[in-house]
């Protein structure tokens, strides 16, 4: 089986996602990048599951998809509230937690 190719794809997606999370200023795009990271994980899970001939990987991926949906729902709600209060979704402006 072409395990390495799948893992490589997963790593590429993960790095893309991490870049997006760290570098983009738009909150919505950050959330989308998080989705990319999660899907990279899903690819790894399914690849390993297929490689070891067990259903557990796919089951886990299904769980991740479900939880990702919930996460993005909450995340978009937060972004929406930030927009409502500040008329902007630039994350560099949101630094109320400054110590």
């Amino acid at each position, binding site marked *: 089986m072409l395990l390495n190719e799948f893992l490589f794809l997963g790593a590429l997606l993960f790095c893309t996602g991490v870049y997006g999370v760290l570098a983009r200023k738009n909150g919505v795009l950050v959330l989308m990048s998080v989705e990319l990271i999660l899907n990279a994980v899903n690819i790894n899970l399914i690849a390993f599951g297929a490689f070891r001939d067990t259903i557990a990987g796919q089951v886990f991926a299904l769980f991740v998809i479900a939880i990702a949906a919930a996460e993005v729902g909450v995340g978009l709600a937060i972004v929406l509230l930030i927009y409502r209060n500040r008329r902007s979704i630039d994350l*560099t402006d949101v630094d109320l937690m400054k110590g």
Partner: protein
Amino acid sequence: MFFLDNAWLTWALPASAFVVILFFGRRLPGKGAEIGIAAVGGSFVLSCAAAAQWIGRGTIGEGEERVRGAVDHTLYTWFSNGQVKVPLGIHVDGLTVMMLLVVTLVSLLVQVYSTAYMHGDRRYTYFYAALALFTASMLVLVTSSTTIFLLLGWEGVGLCSFMLIGHWWEEKDNSDAALKAFFTTRLGDAGMLIGIIILFFANGQSFDIARLNRAALSGGIDHTVLVVGAVALFMGVIGKSAQFPLHTWLPDAMAGPTPVSALIHAATMVVAGVYLVARCYGVFWAAFRVGHHPAWHGISYVAVIGAITIVIAAALAFVQDDIKKVLAYSTVSQLGYMVMALGVGAWTGGIFHLFTHAFFKACLFLGAGSVSHSGSHHSFDMKKDMGGLWRAMPITHATFVIASLALAGIFPLAGFWSKDDILLTAGKNGYNAFMVVGLVGAFMTAAYMARTVYLTFYGEHRGGHHGGQHSAAGHAVDAPHESPLAITVPLVVLAAFSVVAGWLNGFGVHWFAEWTRNEVVVQAHVPEYKFSAPTAALSMAVAVAGIGVGLLYYLRHAFGPLHRATERSSLARAGYRFLLNKYYLDVLYTDIIVGSIKGAIARGAYWVNQRVIDGAVNAVGIGARALARFTYEVVDQKVVDGLVNGTGASAEGGGSVLRRLQTGRVQQYAAFLFGAGAIGALALVLYANQGAR
């Protein structure tokens, strides 16, 4: 086979009754008694149904090998450790079914009886709760398939015995008796626990009794290990079944209420030891080589203990004036019969005697209770407060006499058949000496029962003065009268069983032997013998002679020189005193053994107290003062204050450094997170590579 497969229901019922009585008993109209009676009645019905299904169960094999397969179920795995699993399971065979019937029937009758006998007691509800717990524990004991689960029931009945002997614990004698019973049996239980552990390892790390028996009989266990295990296990029997030399607790246990004596100290708990030997018979059979002639292979340890117990306990029964103590020694002696029977290979005889003895001995105890309840103002002293009661208490009198005759072994009552079976098998198996001991025991039994019956029911009435032993119920002083129905009905039922129970294994009928036979007995080829007229005639003659001698001595004042012998002959006086002091065994145990150990321990403790502890205390005091000064000047002022100040300063400094990290920018936090994750992943990969290399 519902009732056999679900035999655990028999103990689940009283166990739940215990909880219900404990929490709600006081608020119920019957103060908890109705719950106890209903639960045990239910158990009795279940047991009867189980017995019917057992008798209807198909058999395998022919003739003496005809056997019904046991029902074995694992209910639940208590705990498991590696490969070792400790299951809680039930094992139902003929022996179990017989025990189920005996325990539930006697328990039911005793609970009915107690509604009248214990009426108005301060701890009435508590009494019924303890009885329910006892019944549940006893049923766990007899249905268990493993030694460890059996031990659970074994300790449960021991606890309930302690609670019930000390039921009237306000009197010091009673609580002392309870403690004595508990500690003495505990001494045996320690040995039993060791035996269980030895046999656990010998049996391939399994507590299963059926497997243990098979392994022991097929030679799968080393003989030395088997002997050590069996001797250790038998220590538990000596304690629980009141065998010599640990029998001393049983007569003292009579301090408990009479229904308790009937249930626990006559019919059920004390036969747990006999049951244990019968249940693990493969172990004892193989360890002591019971099946071989003693002249060739040494003597069966079990039989010797049983034989000693028969004679010494029967002798003690002659000098007791307390009717319950006579019956207690009689119980010890009869338990000796059962143990001896198992020791000489009379498996059927032993458990048959257990079966019949439960009925007539419970009847005798309940009869004694009836006498004290309604005839002698709560006294149990035969010489002071009884005599001539037969006219006032016809039912009690009739049932007591029937049960006494059954105990003495008079044809055709129950005790005759079971005792005869034991004597016959002992003789046929070549244990002639033990057969003679059995006959001597039968003679003594008949004689002391004649004495007891005469002193209680015949002659002149000696009661009349007030002031009984247990005036708790507060009866008015009145003439002896018959007891109420709740007392007489159980007496009549038990007396009826004392008459008919023996016929299960009588002339030409061997139902009892056939129903109780199990795979162990068949595998061991334990011999069974049919009724033999000469032995029966011999034992009958001995019993009649015993009664005759007893009656002649007391009624006709025959054997003139023997009367008042204790006043004339110093030798007779010494012998009498020897018996009265119970062979000085109690003195040996409490004054000599416990006393010497206790004295040494006390002196040692005093020395330690004076020198070591006092010295240590003084040293600690002086040291503490010096330490306190040092602490204040150095530790408190400099170190602690310094530390406190230092903590504040370092926290402040640390904070000012760390706050630069807290930019509040989410993406910087994410960068830290991913950076840390990357470092962690790198460390993991390096570590894994190192491990692989």
